[in-house]
Each structure stands twice: as structure tokens, then as C-alpha cells.
């Protein structure tokens, strides 16, 4: 089948679908939407339409990136602009159907803005400032297309780059990627063109293509959204890689915690095979290539390329010494190209628009864009794609809307357990591979977590160390035992058992773990400790000397306390909910916490009505004598 036929048919399909005169309701149905009730909202729309015998079509799309507005829907109705609605409930859905479809009142109180399409078929909402700051290349179709319908992707120009690539020489494709200056977006930033070239030159057959979708960093969800919202762009990038390097088999390694991403990639692969974009004799050009989805089983270290390959082989996934590099000896000891989900996503636009176009975006040494998952204490959490070189300030304040409850930003954690905490004073730092490294952090996979005054920096270091210590594969002594001892030191500090020597030991041991580890896990595991020590030493000192946790987080250093004159005598919430029966009323029916019984579960603070606000946390903890 010729590509032009496929595209023509897809465009016809898309035209007919959109111009049928029937209103279309698009609902964001990635995991982020589904987890807050998108499917229930879709059901409510459907039921209400049926009940009122109204025409209307429901289309489940991916994630627009504005996860804070989920469940989200946008409605196309003839004669009106497309209106985007946020935080919908099933009741809202029924109301919209009646008011908008019957009475022609679009319920603007539920709207977040209008959805418009800008050059390159990219959707945006002009009412939101974030869309002005964003540059969408990787997320270009996220939320705009139905991920389970290949024709929508093709109608937008999908697989055109593959069709073009099949007419180009291998060298010229690599040349284009080099010209683009694309660097691997999995975190390390190795130049992609160079990697492809090395793999092309490598001797050995067969060759393999692997897409790394083992997004293990807690707090990062960019790759999940891409695979759930627009899986074909990843597949297209991989097929192009297969053609360029002469490979016939590819794997998408997806972490098991992402069942929907696995399901959608499998559907996408089956559809691509039906359209002759995958499988035997692709587009009649005599090239065979197929892709398997390989679900992971929950091991962070599998994000490391050599471990990932052992995992596919069915061996215990422990990273190995390099060289030989994977491009020479990878999966089944054959030349293998491994790139991240986002890196493959960049390939089709680079081939279509040219490397020169791509290289104009970004900074001198970091080209293109980067996708961040904004989470933590940020107002408008979600996904954002910005040009390399955009400052953290723009990301946090103009795109993320600032900190929840307008609290003060304390630090930004970038790059998950391999990254570091950048204090608020460096907020004007541009995000690119090199500036973040300079501050002791790294891009990592792109999780960006804003932290406010209520986060303890010692606790956050302890949290990441707990994670890496758990996930260390155990091969290198310094990683296996070093991270354990770092963790013990941090635990002692958060329990109030720390001494000034602890801080010195933390520093020394951290440096040794970096030096003595083979793979990225161990080499970067101490980053959270080193950066918090560097920028927040005063907090460590408060824990060690004053036995106090300034952020009121470390459980052994705080107490819960009920303020005598704020407690309402008629209210019994805390008494009834306390699981350890630590709260008793006194003779005036004012509640008092028995500190010896309190297990610090936080329920009293949660259930004490906001208007009373009688329960507080204090540090250092109240001595037994006060109880």
C-alpha cells in the first residue's frame, strides 16, 4: 500500500468524522484523567445524550498536559468555538448536555477556555498563559487525537516522516539528526546522531532497536503520557531507526505500573501492522520491521540500558561494565540502539521539518525542547514542554501557576533520585543539560517537584536514599553498602540522634559512592544528599544540634498539640478518630493529647475542623513532662 493512499483515506475519515454536523465531545482519558473520574464523566455524557435523544459523539483522547484540570472535556459544536471544560463531575456533564445542546447555553462557568489549533495542528488554550510559554514538539498531538485510532495520527501527518525516510539514504538520515543536535532525552543527554552512527557502523547482525519506557523515577510521568496519548509517534521514530540501522526487530520496554500505556502501545502496534506501517515489506519498500512490547516487572535499575537488555533476555538485570557499549554489543550481544520515548518522538518532526529547524530551538549545547512533569506543591500540576533554556521561574510561576496556597517556594527537586534539590535562589537558572549539572542536579528523566516550607530537606534526602538503597542491584560494594550507610546516617539525624560528625561522614561517603559505582544509579544516588547538604546545611544543623525539624516533618522530632483556647468543647472529632485513644477531654471538655500514647498519625490534625484549627505540630517535641 502506498503512503499517499493511506493518508488520503485517513484524511477522508477525519474530515467525515469532524464535519458530520454532530457535536463532538472529546474527553481526556489518560491515566491522569481516568484516576479522577474521566470514564464516569464520559458515561454521564453518553447517558444524558441517549436520554434526551440528542446526537453527539464521544471521543476519548489523551492528555492535554493540564492534569490539574482533569477530568477535562472539550466540545466541538457547529457555529461555536471549541470550549474546554475543567474538573468535570458526572452532574456537570448532564448539565452541559441539556444547557448547551438544548438551550444553547455553553455553561461558561465550567469552562477553562477555548481550544484552538495553531500551526502544525497543535492544540492550545489561549486563555492559559502556559500555552504561550510552551513549545510542543513531543507533546504535539497529546490530547488532540484518539490514541486508539491510527487514522487520526496519520491524518495529522503521522508516518509521513517514515515514508520520506524510506526514500533517503541511511547516512543522510543520521546527518539530519546530527544537524538537529538532538540529545538523548532519557536524562544523560548523549548526542543521538552520534549514537545512531556508531550503531550503524557496528559489525554484527541482527541489530535491535529498543525504546526505553521504563520511567522509574518516582514523580515523573512524561513517558507514560506520551505512550498513552500518542503512541504512534514513538513507533514511527522506532521504525525509522530500524530502517536507518538495518534492524528488523524492536522492543518497547514499559514499566509494569503503566498498564494503560502497555495496552495502548499494543493496540497501536496492531493498527500499524494493519496499515502496513509495521511488519513485512513496510509501505511496499521491501523493509521488514516489527516491534514487541516488553512489560517490566518493577526494578528501577532496569532503566539503565545494559540492565534493561538483560531483563529482556530473562537474566538477572544487573548493569555491566562498559565498553563494550550497547551500540556494539547490546541485546543478545548484538548491536543495539536504545533511546528514550521522547527521543524517538522527536525523530519524525526532525525528518519532516529538517535538522536545521530543530537546531534553532533551545540553547547552544542543548537543542530542542524538554518535557517536565510538574508535581509537588505546585498549583497547576501536569506536563509541560518548553524550549531548552527556559528558566525554572517561567516553568514554576508562568506555567505551573506558582505554589499552592501562595506559600513560599523553598526548592525545586529536578531529576528524581538521581537529581538534586535546587534552592529557590537559583530560580533564574535556565533548564538545559549543562546548567543543571553545574548546580549539582541533572535533567534526569524530567520530574520537577516544587517544594515549599512544609518539606524537610533532610527527610527528602532520606526519602530518595531509601529509594535508591532499595533499588541498588547489589553489584558494586559502594552502592550496595554505601547507600545503606548513608541511609542509616540520615535516619539517625531525623531521629535526633545525629552529631556534627554525621554531616562530615555523609559528605565523605557520598563522594566515595559516586566514585565507586559502575552505573548511573550509584553514581547519582548521593546527589540528593550532596545538594541538600550544600544548600540547606542549616536544616541539617537544626536536626543535629537543636533536635528540631524546622519543616515539622520528621516524626521523632515533632509533637501534635491541641491549642487550649481554640478547641471547641462541643466537638469530638479528634477523640473519635484517634486510633490510639491518645486524646481525652479534660473536666472542661477541652481535648488534650497524651504524648505517651500518641503515634503521630496526623488524623487529629486532619479532622479538626478548619475554622477551629486547634491541632498544631510543634518541634522540638514536647517532653514527657509536659504531657
Amino acid at each position, binding site marked *: 500500500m502506498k503512503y499517499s493512499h493511506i493518508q488520503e483515506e485517513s484524511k477522508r475519515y477525519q474530515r467525515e468524522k469532524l464535519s458530520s454536523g454532530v457535536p463532538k465531545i472529546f474527553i481526556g482519558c489518560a*491515566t*491522569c484523567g*481516568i*484516576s*479522577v473520574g474521566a470514564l464516569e464523566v464520559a458515561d454521564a455524557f453518553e447517558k444524558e445524550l441517549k436520554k434526551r435523544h440528542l446526537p453527539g459523539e464521544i471521543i476519548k483522547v489523551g492528555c492535554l498536559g493540564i*492534569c*490539574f484540570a*482533569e477530568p477535562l472535556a472539550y466540545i466541538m459544536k457547529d457555529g461555536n468555538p471549541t470550549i474546554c471544560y475543567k474538573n468535570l463531575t458526572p452532574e456537570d456533564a448532564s448539565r452541559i448536555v441539556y444547557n448547551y445542546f438544548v438551550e444553547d447555553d455553553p455553561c461558561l462557568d465550567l469552562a477553562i477556555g477555548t481550544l484552538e489549533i495553531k500551526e502544525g495542528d497543535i492544540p492550545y488554550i489561549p486563555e492559559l498563559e502556559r500555552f504561550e510559554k510552551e513549545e510542543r514538539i513531543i507533546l504535539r498531538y497529546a490530547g488532540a487525537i484518539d490514541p486508539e485510532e491510527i487514522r487520526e495520527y496519520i491524518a495529522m501527518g503521522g508516518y509521513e516522516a517514515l515514508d520520506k525516510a524510506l526514500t533517503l539514504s541511511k547516512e543522510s538520515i543520521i546527518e539530519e539528526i546530527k544537524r538537529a543536535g538532538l540529545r538523548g532525552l532519557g536524562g544523560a543527554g548523549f548526542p543521538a546522531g552520534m549514537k545512531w552512527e556508531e550503531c550503524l557502523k557496528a559489525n554484527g547482525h541482527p541489530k535491535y532497536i529498543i525504546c526505553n519506557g521504563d*520511567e*522509574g*523515577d*518516582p*514523580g*515523573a*510521568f512524561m513517558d*507514560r*503520557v506520551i505512550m498513552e496519548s500518542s503512541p504512534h509517534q514513538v513507533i514511527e521514530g522506532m521504525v525509522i531507526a530500524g530502517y536507518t540501522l538495518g534492524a528488523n526487530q524492536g522492543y518497547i520496554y514499559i514499566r*509494569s*505500573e*503503566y*498498564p494503560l500505556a502497555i495496552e495502548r502501545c499494543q493496540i497501536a502496534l496492531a493498527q500499524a501492522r494493519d496499515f502496513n506501517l509495521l511488519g513485512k515489506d513496510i509501505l511496499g519498500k521491501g523493509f521488514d520491521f516489527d516491534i514487541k512490547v*516488553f*512489560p*517490566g*516487572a*518493577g*526494578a*528501577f535499575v532496569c532503566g539503565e540500558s545494559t540492565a534493561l537488555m538483560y*531483563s*529482556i*533476555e*530473562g*537474566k*538477572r*538485570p544487573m548493569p555491566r561494565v562498559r565498553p563494550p557499549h550497547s551500540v556494539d554489543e547490546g541485546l543478545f550481544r548484538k548491536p543495539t540502539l536504545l533511546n528514550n520515548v521522547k527521543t524517538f518522538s522527536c525523530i519524525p518532526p526532525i525528518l519532516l521539518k529538517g535538522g536545521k529547524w530543530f537546531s534553532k530551538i533551545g540553547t547552544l549545547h542543548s537543542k530542542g525542547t524538554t518535557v517536565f*512533569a510538574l*508535581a*509537588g*506543591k505546585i498549583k497547576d*500540576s*501536569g506536563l509541560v514542554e518548553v524550549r531548552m533554556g527556559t528558566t525554572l521561574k517561567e516553568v514554576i510561576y508562568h506555567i505551573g501557576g506558582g505554589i499552592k496556597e501562595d506559600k513560599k517556594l523553598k526548592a525545586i*527537586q529536578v531529576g*528524581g533520585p538521581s537529581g538534586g534539590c535546587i534552592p529557590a535562589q537559583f530560580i533564574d537558572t535556565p533548564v538545559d543539560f549543562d546548567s543543571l549539572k553545574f548546580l549539582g542536579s541533572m535533567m534526569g528523566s524530567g*520530574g520537577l*517537584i516544587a*517544594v515549599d516550607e512544609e*518539606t524537610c530537606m533532610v527527610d*527528602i534526602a532520606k*526519602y*530518595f536514599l531509601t*529509594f535508591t538503597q532499595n533499588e541498588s*542491584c547489589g553489584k558494586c560494594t559502594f552502592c550496595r553498602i554505601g547507600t545503606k550507610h548513608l541511609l542509616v546516617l540520615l535516619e539517625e539525624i531525623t531521629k535526633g540522634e545525629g552529631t556534627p560528625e554525621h554531616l562530615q561522614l555523609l559528605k565523605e561517603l557520598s563522594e566515595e559512592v559516586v566514585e565507586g559505582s559502575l552505573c548511573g544509579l550509584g553514581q547519582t544516588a548521593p546527589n540528593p544528599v550532596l545538594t541538600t547538604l550544600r544548600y540547606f546545611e542549616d536544616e541539617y544543623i537544626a536536626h543535629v544540634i537543636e533536635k528540631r525539624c524546622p519543616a515539622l516533618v520528621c516524626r521523632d522530632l515533632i509533637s501534635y498539640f491541641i491549642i487550649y483556647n481554640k478547641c471547641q468543647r462541643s466537638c469530638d472529632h479528634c477523640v473519635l*478518630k484517634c*486510633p490510639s485513644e491518645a486524646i481525652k477531654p479534660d473536666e472542661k471538655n477541652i481535648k488534650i493529647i497524651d504524648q505517651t500514647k500518641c*503515634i503521630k*498519625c*496526623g*488524623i487529629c490534625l*486532619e*479532622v479538626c475542623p478548619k475554622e477551629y484549627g486547634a491541632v498544631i505540630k510543634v518541634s522540638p517535641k514536647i517532653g514527657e513532662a509536659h504531657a
Partner: protein
Amino acid sequence: MEESGQIEEIFRRYSSEREHLLPVLQEINEKVGYLSRESMERVAHFFHLPCSEIFSIITFYKKFRRKPLGENPVHVCLGTACYLLGGNLILDAFSRELHIETGDTTEDRKFSLDVAACFGCCNVAPVIKIHRQIYPKMTPGKVEEVLINLQDEKRSDDPD
């Protein structure tokens, strides 16, 4: 289906090349709910590998369970966003209410408790997951309610 029957059915769909080891283990873990010593021995036999090798792989990955899963498997997310918003307090609350530690199953096999590292829904953190449902914006105070609702659901499904 009997456990052994389920496993045999899985074996029929795979050849014994080592690259099928992980998919086979995944399927057994999914369908049977856990990997018993007997399952491991069967797998070792099927792939012509020593049992210790299978054990070393199973224990490497978090997803593989060596104890049966509860009817309602509770997974508490301790990803960064969830942790910072009090995920560990939620884990403690489940552990307290169910009287089990992380990784265990209640005696009546109704509930099991596990930790997960991020479901990718950080925007509604802290979250837990039971079956395919994500519970957004959890608090320690909501834990009891979640458990009661699950027990009620079971009862209303029951025809008796």
C-alpha cells in the same frame, strides 16, 4: 482453574527460550496471584534452569509476589509527590487498620498491602490503587472508609 492447570496453559503458549522467562513469570504472577515454590520449580523445569536462578530473578523485581495476593490488593504509592504529601502516613494507617505489614496479606486473604513507586498520577497525590482504581487525594482519615466500602461491596455482591 487449578494452579497447575493455569501454569500448564501458560507454558503451552511459550517456547522455552530464556527470553520468554519474564513474560511467563509475569503471567503466572498475574493469573495465580503469586509465585509459590512449586510454581518456581515448574518454571525452572520448563526453562531447564536451576531453581536458584528463578529465585534470583523473582526476588529482584518488586512485582513478583511470593505470598498470595489479597482479594483487595492495596497499593500505596510512595512516589516523590505522594511521599511529600504524606504517603507514609497513609501506609501506616493501612498497616494499622489491617494489622499487617507491607508485603503481607491478611489472614482471611481479603486484603494485602504493598508499596508502589508512582502510578504517574502525581497531580492528585497522595494516591493508592486497589485493582484498577486509583483513589486520589488520600488522607489517613479516609483509610477506614475505603476499607469499609470494600467490605460492603463484597457483601452486596454476595447473593446470600
